[in-house]
């Protein structure tokens, strides 16, 4: 038998789909398709990293059951990213509608949603039962929260032999700073990613987004998929301990090896180098002003051929004959002059005009695209269907960020927008845990779910 034939004893429970009443029948769960169909995940994740990590599983067929706490709403349910109501995300509505948040919808589509009150022993019993009926458990709480509910890896193995327990945190589950608090920007700062980003001689410009929330999510998805692969090959489950700070450091690149191998500090006057490269000696290599309000174009030239093509494309073939620009090394040394000349040319044009003109000539260039460019005008993203739309009972039609990889063998299974708070309580508790509708109604009345 080849190593990758599914094992006959793959420990996935049967997934029943009876006709639980849903006000809108289109929102009733149905059997899933994709490489992860049949895998049930008891998902305790919240915030960004965890939600994006398990989103990939949900998109490709897993039954991801998101477990929420009514008393402490998931942050993306509260962040004020609403249709027709522009606010900064610090400007929260004190009493938000938990089903209106756009960020939550983007992060949690294709998942089932239930609520559990873990302060009530009956809530914790339901969590145990759900874990026993699943084969993957995921969480990204502060350290000690799962333990407070008794949900250690040892206990999970008792509940669910062969369980995969994915633990996602900022600093990992061991070491002196394990209890430190973090979110994207803190991880970026601590891991060095902020420091290596900026102009020389001033404060770092760092990141204008929680890049590490996304990257840590992607790494946590991969860890989950590796663990699933390992269990299918061997029957063995595992605990996973992923630390976002360590993921960030692993992505610092050659600057770190320069520090470790050459003992060259990055705290030095000429570091970092803004949009210029230290290596290789590309020039011009920068972001240039364009016509319009705060519009820019990125241009990168790595060798003589690209330089010749660029000079012709911008209508300045004589630049290629100038002594000061005669070689890549000369151009690298003369970047200030070069940038001034090129910037004077780009300033008269729109960023997409420059992009089209240079790309047609075989020169690396792109408009600095904003979200409007990506969503309304980018023909490449449109052709590949990167963004998609689904209906939501409160929000209405909404757009989503899709998966960025196209497969010849399958497609994502996009069956429903994000769950309303507790939307699948009855479905999950009756079909997965075998409770009666009356029992579910009692639990709801008593504040257990």
């Amino acid at each position, binding site marked *: 038998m*080849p*190593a*990758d034939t599914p094992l006959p004893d793959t420990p996935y429970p049967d997934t029943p789909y009876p006709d639980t009443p849903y006000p809108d029948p289109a929102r009733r769960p149905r059997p899933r398709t994709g490489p*992860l169909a049949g895998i049930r995940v008891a998902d305790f994740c919240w915030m960004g990293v965890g939600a994006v990590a398990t989103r990939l599983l949900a998109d490709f067929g897993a039954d991801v059951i998101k477990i929420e706490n009514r008393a402490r709403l998931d942050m993306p349910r509260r962040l004020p990213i*609403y*249709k027709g*109501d522009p606010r*900064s995300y610090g400007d929260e509505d004190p009493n938000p509608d938990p089903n209106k948040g756009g960020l939550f919808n983007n992060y949690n589509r294709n998942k089932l949603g239930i609520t559990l009150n873990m302060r009530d022993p009956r809530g914790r019993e339901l969590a145990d039962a759900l874990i026993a009926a699943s084969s993957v458990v995921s969480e990204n709480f502060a350290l000690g929260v799962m333990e407070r509910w008794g949900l250690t890896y040892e206990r999970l193995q008792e509940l669910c032999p062969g369980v995969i327990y994915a633990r996602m945190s900022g600093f*990992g589950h061991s070491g002196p*700073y394990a209890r430190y*608090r973090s979110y*994207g*920007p803190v991880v970026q700062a*601590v891991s060095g*990613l*902020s420091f290596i*980003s*900026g102009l020389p001689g001033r*404060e*770092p*410009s*760092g*990141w*204008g*987004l929680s*890049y590490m929330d*996304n990257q840590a999510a*992607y*790494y946590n998805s991969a*860890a989950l*998929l*590796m663990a699933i*692969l390992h269990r299918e*090959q061997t029957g063995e489950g*595992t605990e996973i*301990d*992923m*630390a976002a700070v360590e993921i960030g450091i692993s992505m610092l*690149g*050659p600057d770190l090896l320069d520090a470790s*191998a*050459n003992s060259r500090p990055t705290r030095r006057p000429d570091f970092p180098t803004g*949009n210029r490269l230290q290596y*290789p000696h590309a020039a011009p*290599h*920068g*972001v240039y*002003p364009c016509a319009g309000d705060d519009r820019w174009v990125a241009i990168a030239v790595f060798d003589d051929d690209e330089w010749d093509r660029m000079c012709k494309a911008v209508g300045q073939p004589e630049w290629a004959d100038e002594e000061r620009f005669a070689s890549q090394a000369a151009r690298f040394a003369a970047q200030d002059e070069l940038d001034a000349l090129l910037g004077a040319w780009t300033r008269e044009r729109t960023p997409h005009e420059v992009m089209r003109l240079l*790309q047609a000539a075989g020169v690396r260039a792109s408009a*600095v695209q904003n979200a409007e460019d*990506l969503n309304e005008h980018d023909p490449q993203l449109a052709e*590949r269907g990167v*963004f998609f739309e689904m209906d939501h009972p409160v*929000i209405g039609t909404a*757009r989503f960020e*899709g*998966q*960025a990889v196209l*497969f010849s*063998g399958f497609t994502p299974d996009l069956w429903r927008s994000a769950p309303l708070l507790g939307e699948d309580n009855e479905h999950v508790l009756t079909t997965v845990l075998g409770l009666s509708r009356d029992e579910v109604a009692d639990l709801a009345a008593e504040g257990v779910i």
Partner: protein
Amino acid sequence: MWREADAAPGRTPYNGLVVVEVGTDLDGEQTGKLLADLGATVIKVEPPGGSPTRACGPWLGDVEGSETSLAFATYNTSKQSVVLDLPAGLPRLEELVADADVLLCGLQPAALARLGLSYGELVARHPRLVVLSVTPFGLTGPWADYLSSDLVALAAGGPLASCGYDDHTIPPIRPGGNQGFQTSASHAHNGLLLALLQRRRTGRGQIVDVSMHDALAVTGELANPYWFYPRVLLERQTCRHAQPEPTQPALFQCADGNYIYFALVLADQKPWQQLVAWLDSAGVALDLTDPAYGSLPHRQENFAHIQDLIEVFCLLHDADWMYHEGQARGLPIGIVSAPEDLLADAHLRARGYFVGVDLGEAGTVEYPSTPFRFGAFPVPPMRRPPRLGEHTAARLQEP
């Protein structure tokens, strides 16, 4: 190719997985490194002159050469190197691929056509093969043959627009470390895993088409949702979230000249109380202990004044102290570490994060280990990057 005997409890699932890597840019190289560091056999096919990355500094010991590139050393650990001149060596490439599980390739459609390589025909001939294509814009669409780079990709995909300084006469600034390529590699890793799981179910491989552009377009965090819902664009701000409007600074310089990141969320009561208690313990809380600050509107009205006090407090203390003392008090403060600071970090030491890799004459160099940690199986030791063509003889029989 994977065999039954390769899978065992206590062993990485990539044990026995054979990957042939060819024509890759840094994203494909990073993808291959992720797989190789986690136990796959990754055979990197290089042209006679070596991967272009070998020509890129910085240099080990500041000596330029094909075996001293620290860029190559970063993205090619634990791999094997085979030299093959293409297109002449195409039949021998296919021999390698015939024994492999995965072809990891970075060539764009026009380059594939020039080479005469068709993925469709390749998977037809080798039905269990997974072709993992990692390219700037993907294999389809009007921009499929556009050229790119890390900077160009970050611009096209959107993240660059959110990064830079409050001063908008300064252009958006590219974050360091080739993160466009890193983003693409992360998506490639997940794409391959899904295809390997699917192969277990169907016995068949497939073509996995990874686009750096698509990957970055879904990695902007708030930028797209702010367009999907309120339809507003974000403004870049110095080392903190791009937002619809300017917000208070989050970077504070400390007594030793180093920085911390601290974004005070005024709406949350607990961090506010923790902050005031901290300032008060140092005798610099001034009027912040006034009960009026218990109300959010009052804090919002006086946010600039609060920020001034934090600024002064930071200037009186070193960044390291602010970081650890603040965290001990429950505040999410991050020190802005320089890469060299990390090598001595007590937490990372305790977790055994940095590992020594023997680079030969240069001795042992400290590397960040793969950040994947599983209880059930250890990740194998990281191995040095291969010398150019080091495994040609072992992998390719003479014609």
